[in-house]
């Protein structure tokens, strides 16, 4: 199984094992068809028939015995949703972002599902940028910089996006069995945290003929917070509302935030390279 570099700071800090897990938690504090949050902050995730995870204390991930036969599914969720929960439990700040880097500077593409974060990151990764992470983007404040900690280099792509990136979808592995999305695994772009040069919020406006980029400023640059944070509500239910707010406002004070509005047509991808580069050099 190809796991990303440890979510922690180097030394293995996450224990991963297989064991029997119950279907649900007793008397959870909050519950949905897919997730139970215990009063102790433990999280049980249910994804598909076979795949269950119990995530405890930001240190322990238990995969249900029955899931062992479906490793691609397990891997897909481990590097995505499970790592997001771990980061919340560890009091880390995670953006809902895919992130690439060039010349030791990172740019994070944030936005809700469906805005094209993974597609854009994959496109840039094929054009000289290094991929740092897909979907879950951990942020640390260290050595006078806001930095991105490298995460998963497995990009989840819809078939049409894969084609737009010159990959025949059927040549790529599927992530989750029975699901059309494909996995593009790229080399790890960095082992060490990379300073974050810009946050780019993605939007789609089908009226546009060409993509448009603008600088955002003030509180509006980070609102609504759900558009930037990874699973803000989940974090809130794990008692993290304040540190997430403080982390986000701190980040926005140090790193420029932009809005990049795309046309919704993947033919606009080539034009984006120049726009992103201008953001990186503009600083």
């Amino acid at each position, binding site marked *: 199984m190809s796991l990303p570099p440890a979510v922690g700071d180097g030394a293995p800090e996450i224990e991963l094992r297989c064991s029997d897990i119950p279907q649900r938690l007793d008397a959870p504090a909050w519950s*949905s068809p897919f997730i139970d949050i215990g009063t102790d902050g433990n999280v049980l995730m249910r*994804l598909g028939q076979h795949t269950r995870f119990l995530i405890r204390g930001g240190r322990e991930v238990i995969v249900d015995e029955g899931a062992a036969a479906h490793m691609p599914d397990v891997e*897909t*969720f481990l590097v995505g949703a499970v790592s997001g929960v771990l980061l919340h439990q560890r009091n880390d700040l995670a953006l809902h972002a895919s992130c690439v880097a060039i010349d030791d500077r990172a740019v994070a593409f944030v936005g809700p*599902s*469906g805005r094209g974060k993974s597609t854009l990151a994959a496109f840039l990764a094929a054009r000289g940028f290094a991929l740092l992470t897909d979907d879950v983007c951990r942020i640390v404040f260290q050595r006078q910089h806001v930095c991105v900690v490298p995460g998963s280099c497995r990009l989840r792509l819809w078939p049409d996006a894969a084609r737009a990136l010159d990959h025949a979808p059927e040549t790529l592995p599927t992530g989750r069995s*029975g699901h059309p999305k494909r996995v593009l695994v790229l080399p790890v772009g960095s082992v060490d945290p990379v300073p974050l040069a810009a946050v780019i919020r993605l939007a789609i*406006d089908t*009226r546009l003929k060409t993509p448009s980029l603008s600088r955002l400023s003030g509180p509006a640059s980070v609102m609504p917070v759900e558009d930037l944070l990874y699973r803000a509500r989940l974090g809130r239910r794990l008692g993290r509302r304040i540190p997430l707010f403080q982390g986000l406002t701190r980040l926005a004070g140090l790193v420029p935030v932009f809005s990049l509005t795309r046309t919704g*047509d993947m033919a606009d991808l080539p034009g984006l390279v120049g726009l992103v580069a201008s953001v990186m050099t503009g600083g």
Partner: protein
Amino acid sequence: MAGVQFGWLVSYPKSGNTWMRMMLSSLMSGGGSVDINAIDSRIGIATFAEMDEFLGVESCELTREEIAIARPALHAAIAADHDEPLILRKVHDRYWRTPSGGAAFVPDISRGAVYLVRDPRDIAVSYSHHRGSEIDRMIGQMADDDVALASATLRGKEQLPQPLGSWNGHVLSWLDQTEIPTLAMRYEDMLSAPTACLAKVAMHLGIDTAEAHLHAAVVATGFDILSIQENASGFRERQTSAMAAFFRQGRSGGWREQLSAAQADRIVDRHGAVMARFGYL
């Protein structure tokens, strides 16, 4: 907040949904002006992002069936998290049930639905302008029991898949169910008597109104005003291959100039019973 309920604003596409939402949005702000481009975020369609946030799942990793099964839970979670008593939502789905039999639009948390009906011949013409597609193809799509919005390979951009089905099946699915009180309203009546129609909708959804606000809301969202806004700022809902202004097809009966006799007959053959029920024949 407890006791939150949905007001579903339902229609087959191109049947006046946007206009109705704008009127209601204006009404609820006392008859003020409405930003054309903000309406979808104020009264919108269910999205993957909402499923991510409210159900705590990577919804774009779910199969179409799993998404469908989770729709009732999504609606319940949205209601539980809302801080006002009424949530207005745009719906293009036909009335459907999950594989386990539960209604997707949960009756217990639904105050009511408003179902907008429009002459399908005008829809065929209007829709094809909206998407720049052939009228014949649209007539075929309106007759197709299996069609769904935003569900081609699940790549619906941001919206969750919405089962649509044929036009007449769509109408009947909402009007024949008895779980959610549904007010049927003809788009053509909205055109000829907008204030009275808006008043009926407000009463059905339990929205407190003043006479003056009703009038103001109608004026603020009249086609003249909206056309001016659209020309000035564009209108985000228009898709890239549109050939005409979104509101150009606002009138009724325009199909007589645009459809051939054969095309009109095809529509009547397929949907005639429901058309007669609403006085279109």
